């Protein structure tokens, strides 16, 4: 069935009518309501760690109490929250959660497939336990279709289904807020990448120094754990590895993959064979030439054993890879994959075989490539690894021999835990590119206004903030119940009060930052309001008894303490 807006509306209406009829019948058969719904706990990050999320949780709890639910907000540190939600999937009811933006998430595949496909329900991203064969089919199909417009139809359907079922109560796509000192960096050399903002590869390669300062000094509020081409420990190191190691393709500033170390990327008609031509004259940082053997090694090493568990899934679709001459590599795939360029060619780091092959051979059993890292940070990228001083800074220097050589001399990342101090550093020039700001954006704007030289750039995130229901536990298995709770949330209020206006309302797992894939109007199309919430609950048979919401007749509480 082709899903259209009208069709969807009709389905929704008839479902609602059917539910209402069943409800009415049940009420005639048994006048008594079901059990009272148990007191519920809404898990959130602790207030100090994520004030926006915590405040949103409080606002949601307040609204839901008016529906007759007993809700308590519980702030937890991240490890404890993960432990409850991710590793003990049967134990929780409601949690605040977030998905963050990354360059490879510029293709909707990762979110569309992983978040809701039933195969990822046990251990993967589908931690809410959503099972819908119709959705599974769409998620699988969209991967196989290489025609963009045809694929778009499926991505729209996927968004519609999640909207209809309200598997998540989406809240907002936050704004990414970064700032730089325009007396050090030319404002027109900053590149804004959709969903990522100005903190991206293209800015770092293209940033033009205005005066004598040629070092870009950035800040990170996270402690860094690794810099390794085969292992990513967090958001910060993922954008360091991106600079040191080249990839066959890169996500361009328009969000689409572009040939990079490959001069050209050509697909066969059935989408199962890709021919990559390596750029001429590429060199590793140690002076050795980049060869097709290195390319083959980079895509085969992660597949073997436990070398690089983190990258293994991204090369598992490669059936064969061979060099046809000294600059051409041909890959054959097990099946066509629309996201292959983004999730594999633009994701895997090219590593020198002469450095890594001996390292990998020496691995003792069970150890992974993640363990061998020192002195192995040789890439071919526009920046060379210089040094990393624990808890202080990472220094990269420009690779002047690169075909896309940076215009700055050094790229220095400072670890600054105190966000106020980071702001002070930006004003005093100790930092000239604020790449991590977790404080109130209003303060940053104010500082920029006082300073005169600072420029603040905001962009909508690929990631999003949401509230997840545990669909394994009634009443959250009931889509009507979820729709009602979602309708009771005042997203305008949350956007203004919790995020200070630095966010846009969300109702889809495909961000408006991905302009082509996002279904326009899906956030504004969501009907909300307290009265609507109450009427949905009423139609679904839920009853209010003495101020407490009860299950529909016959419904029993299985999870009461």
């Amino acid at each position, binding site marked *: 069935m082709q899903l259209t807006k009208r069709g969807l509306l009709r389905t929704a209406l008839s479902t609602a009518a059917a539910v209402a009829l069943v409800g009415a019948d049940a009420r005639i058969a048994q006048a008594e309501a079901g059990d009272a719904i148990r007191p519920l706990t809404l898990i959130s990050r602790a207030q100090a760690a994520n004030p926006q999320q915590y405040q949103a949780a409080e606002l949601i709890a307040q609204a839901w109490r008016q529906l007759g639910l007993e809700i308590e907000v519980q702030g937890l540190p991240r490890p*404890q929250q*993960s432990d409850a939600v991710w590793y003990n999937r049967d134990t929780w009811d409601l949690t605040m959660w977030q998905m963050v933006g990354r360059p490879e998430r510029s293709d909707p595949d990762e979110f569309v497939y992983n978040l809701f496909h039933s195969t990822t329900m046990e251990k993967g991203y589908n931690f809410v336990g959503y099972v819908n064969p119709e959705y599974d089919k769409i998620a699988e199909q969209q991967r196989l279709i290489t025609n963009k417009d045809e694929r778009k139809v499926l991505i729209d359907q996927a968004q519609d289904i999640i909207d209809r079922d309200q598997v998540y109560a989406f809240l907002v796509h936050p704004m990414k807020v970064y700032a730089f000192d325009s007396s050090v960096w030319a404002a027109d050399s900053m590149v804004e990448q959709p969903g990522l903002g100005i903190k991206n590869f293209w800015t770092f390669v293209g940033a033009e120094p205005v005066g004598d300062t040629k070092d870009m000094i950035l800040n990170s509020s996270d402690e860094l754990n690794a810099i390794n081409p085969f292992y990513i*420990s967090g958001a910060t190191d993922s954008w360091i590895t991106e600079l040191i190691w080249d990839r066959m393709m890169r996500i361009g500033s328009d969000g689409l993959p572009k040939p990079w170390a490959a001069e050209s990327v050509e697909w066969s008609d059935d989408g199962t064979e890709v021919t990559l031509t390596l750029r001429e004259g590429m060199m590793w940082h140690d002076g050795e030439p980049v060869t097709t053997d290195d390319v083959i090694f980079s895509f085969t090493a992660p597949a073997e054993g436990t070398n690089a568990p983190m990258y293994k899934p991204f090369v598992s679709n490669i059936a064969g890879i061979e060099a046809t001459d000294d600059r051409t590599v041909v890959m054959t795939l097990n099946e066509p994959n629309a996201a292959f360029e983004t999730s594999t060619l633009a994701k895997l780091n090219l590593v020198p075989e002469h450095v890594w092959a001996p390292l990998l051979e020496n691995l003792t059993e*069970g150890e992974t490539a993640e363990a061998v890292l020192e002195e192995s940070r040789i890439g071919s990228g526009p920046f060379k690894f210089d040094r990393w001083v*624990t*808890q202080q*800074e990472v220094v990269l220097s420009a690779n002047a021999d690169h075909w896309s050589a940076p215009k700055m001399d050094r790229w*220095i990342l*400072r670890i600054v835990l105190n966000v106020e101090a980071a702001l002070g550093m930006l004003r005093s020039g100790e930092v000239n590119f604020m790449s991590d700001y977790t404080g109130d954006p209003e303060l940053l704007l104010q500082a920029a206004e006082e300073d005169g030289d600072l420029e603040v750039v905001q962009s909508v995130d690929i990631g999003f903030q949401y509230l997840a229901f545990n669909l394994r536990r009634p009443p959250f298995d009931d889509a009507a119940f979820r729709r009602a709770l979602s309708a009771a949330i005042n997203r305008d209020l949350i956007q203004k009060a919790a995020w200070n206006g630095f966010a846009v309302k969300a109702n889809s797992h495909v961000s408006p930052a991905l302009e082509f894939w996002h279904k326009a109007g899906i956030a504004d199309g969501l009907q909300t309001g307290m009265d609507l919430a109450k009427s949905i609950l009423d139609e679904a048979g839920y009853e209010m008894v003495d101020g407490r919401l009860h299950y529909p007749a016959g419904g029993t509480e299985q999870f009461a303490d």
Partner: protein
Amino acid sequence: MGYVAKRFLQMIFVLWTVATILFFMFRLMPGTPLAAFIDNTTTAEQQDALIAQFGLDKSLGEQYFLFLWNLLQGDLGQSFFFKKPVLEVVWQVFPNSVILTLTSLIIAYLFGIVVGAYLAWKRGSWVEGVGIPLVLTTRAAPEFWLGMVLLAFFSFHLGWFPSGGANTSGSEWQSGWSRLTSADFLSHLALPAITLAIYLQGLPLLLMRSNMLNVLQEEFITMARMKGLSTWTIVMRHAARNALLPVATAFALGIGGAVGGNVVVETVFSWPGIGRLLVNAVSASDYPLAQGAFLMITFVLVVMNFIADITYHLLDPRVRVAANG
């Protein structure tokens, strides 16, 4: 020497107890080291591989004996996240912590001893009336608040000192020693050291003052006055020397305590130190690193305690008699 040997055995016992408690505490806490890897599309198979790699697939008892055996050989294990030996990771930031701690302790104790003695002498005067509440207020002020105020004024406003870190971005040094003795390092050290010193000065000051008040009651002070000695000589040479012993003990213990207790100051000033390392390790469930860092801190604390005890024993005949009797 029997006393010293006994104390030494007790110290070993304390270290073993702490090591044991640390081992079980981290493993029984909610949270798993895998949580830090969640964001990275780990599959079930990869999770198992990680668990095996961390040695967490072995029984708790087996892990415990391995841990003790390695510890006896001076091996604290490998950090899960840095993928490096714990000692190496800890050693990278340990000197920073020690320097920050020692600098601020010395400032705090010098200031505390002198001002404490002075306030005792000025008992009942307006100086005491203003001084004591002032000391109590600064002592009670939270470190992060104090740090932020100093940052806002001396760094953001006046621009005299840098706003964080231990060295200027991208600066290079011939050796660790040349780094630690550079003007650059000292200017970065100033604000955190002053913050910590202000926080620490209350204890030696009040301790010194109350000891002085006791000593000043003693007959030999009256005697000194009768001899017609100057105020300065009486306070500093006669009274203060006698009042100093407990303060010296507090100093030794302070070194141990402050090495691990600087998380707040380290965070406010982005100072690379063992406290931050510890917080990071605990929140990421990096068991070996957290254990190792805690053990290092415990070790310093227990050894300082031991030294304080022995010194006391040697310095004060009364303690010696009590111990032997």
